[in-house]
């Protein structure tokens, strides 16, 4: 089966500091993939680079194909026809992601006209339908309001409406719930799940919240310091996180009920991309690290169960049962 989007050896450097070290990722039609990792690990940069949305000073190399058609290095107009139409993207802070001086109706209509060729009243009607679809109450009256007259959650719904306007094959949701409070987060996840069911579009869900990812996605890529370190289905990963970093992420999830255990934080911080060691980037924080981990970098290998893992000393499968129980109780 050919994939909808294929990313090969995608690398990004800012001012000759490498922040993305060769990402390989496939997105199938209608599939939902989660990208998980701490801030600064390259989750968003991967997709901003794929869509050519990084600032000019970023040096990007590698290949990004949509249905076999290369996007890297093509003319700006070719990229513009993919953005919004084939691949749409929504962002972390919805309130600042909408243009403050334009009416929201116009911002949606603009995308409708651009991708569907609708004009005038038809475009307006379609924009209103999209506003209804994403759950903006009283859309007709609020069509001509400005973004600052909507709450954060509603702004994110409007962003989703704009993203849906082009009927994209893939929606990149870049931490869409991070800036929202907990109840709105849950509503937003429900909306994303519902829209995916209705439209059949593929979804890439970028988040540092494993719980949210498990609700939306079928497959997860765990990223660390600009590389994918583990990739598996939700079931595999939750049953048995093998990379010590993935395990660390699970250990840091608080529980809603049960005994009040102290959370186990991952010691240290994300390494500065300017001073990455030659070996595994996680080695300085890793409980399983051996001496050679500092000098040799493990490749992302495919295991017998189909998962991809980049670790010399992974967490043994036997250790995973308490984790699974903890997650099932906690999430």
């Amino acid at each position, binding site marked *: 089966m050919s994939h909808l989007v294929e990313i090969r050896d995608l690398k990004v450097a800012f001012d000759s500091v490498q922040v993305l070290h060769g990402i390989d990722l496939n997105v199938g039609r209608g599939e939902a993939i989660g990208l998980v990792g701490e801030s600064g690990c390259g989750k968003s940069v991967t997709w901003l680079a794929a869509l050519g949305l990084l600032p000019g000073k970023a040096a990007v190399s590698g290949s990004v194909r949509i249905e076999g058609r290369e996007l890297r290095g093509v003319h700006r107009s070719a990229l513009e026809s993919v953005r*919004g139409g084939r691949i749409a993207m929504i962002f972390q802070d919805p309130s600042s992601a909408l243009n403050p001086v334009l009416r929201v109706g116009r911002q949606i209509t603009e995308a409708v006209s651009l991708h569907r060729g609708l004009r005038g009243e038809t475009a307006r009607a379609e924009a209103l339908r999209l506003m209804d679809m994403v759950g903006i109450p009283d859309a007709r009256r609020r069509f001509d309001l400005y973004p600052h007259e909507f709450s954060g959650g509603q702004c994110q719904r409007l962003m989703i409406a704009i993203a849906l306007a082009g009927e994209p094959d893939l929606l990149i949701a870049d931490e869409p719930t991070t800036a929202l409070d907990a109840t709105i987060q849950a509503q937003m996840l429900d909306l994303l799940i519902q829209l995916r069911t209705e439209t059949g579009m593929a979804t890439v869900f970028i988040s540092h919240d494993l719980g949210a990812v498990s609700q939306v996605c079928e497959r997860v890529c765990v990223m660390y310091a600009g590389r994918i370190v583990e990739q598996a289905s939700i079931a595999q990963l939750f049953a048995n996180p093998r990379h010590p970093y993935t395990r660390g992420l699970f250990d840091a999830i608080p529980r809603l009920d049960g005994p009040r255990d102290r959370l186990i934080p991952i010691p240290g911080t994300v390494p500065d991309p300017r001073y990455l060691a030659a070996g595994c980037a996680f080695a300085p924080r890793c409980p399983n690290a051996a001496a050679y981990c500092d000098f040799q970098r493990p490749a992302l290998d495919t295991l017998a169960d189909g998962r991809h893992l980049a670790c010399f000393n992974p967490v043994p499968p036997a250790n995973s049962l308490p984790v699974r129980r903890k997650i099932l109780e906690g999430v």
Partner: protein
Amino acid sequence: MIRFVSIRLLRALVTILAVVTFAFVVLRISGDPAQVMLGPDVPQDAVDAFREAWGLDQPLWIQYLAYIHSIFTGDLGISMRDKESALQLVLERIPATLQLTIPALLLKLIIGIPAGVYAALHRQSGIDRGVIMLSILGFTIPSFVMGLLLVLIFSVTLGLLPSGGQGTWMHSLLPTITMSIGGIGLLARFSRSAMIEVMGQPYIRTASAKGLRWSDVVWQHALPNAAVPIVTIVGFMVGALLAGAVVVESIFSWPGIGRLLVVSVANRDLAVVQCILLLIAATMVVSNLIVDLLYGWLDPRLRGQAAH
């Protein structure tokens, strides 16, 4: 909205009153018109007669009240030198000043804003560096230096353009250019920084991610947001349409308000100076008011604040 405008109008009146009062006091404590007008060797009784004729023998506060009263009745006084209505004298000079300041303002807008926006969109390029350098040069060189430099080059050395006076369009060329260079630099610099700030905002990334053409992203999403700081500067320039030409008119012997002001201050021609300052304050205040109204139109977030 009506409340907003009426509050602003009231403030504008207070500002104008403050300017008028300041001019009144400073002019009267800094020199004696009788001495200046009549010369140093005039007998005392002639000086006294002059003072009495112009009401200068009255206590200052009575003069002030009489002056304020006459302003409100539309009487801006008589020139001591020309014995004509001060307002008439000033109004006669306005077209000459506008003949320089309006083309200069247009040059500032037409060159300054596009240069700044282009530089912002091509940051770190050679053109960007050129724009930064020229704009700093433009607004750091004082207009009296720039004016003399241009005269030296184009009139004295090359003999292409007249060095002063009013006549053909060629006469207005050098003063207009002199007057516009600083403003072009200032506007280019402000437009550039406003545009760089806006281009880094998340909503610009959203507009690009939507699939909009680059030119639409710039024209429809970025420029309207960059307009507020640019409009502020342009507002000051419009406000200075009458006042901005003092130095340049003097260098190029241009018979406008600026030169009339310099001559009248030197002669202590009280009514004329006060009339000019009143007009300048009024244009400044009116253009500020327009800018305030424009803010609300440009940025809907400021509308709520404007109403309070």
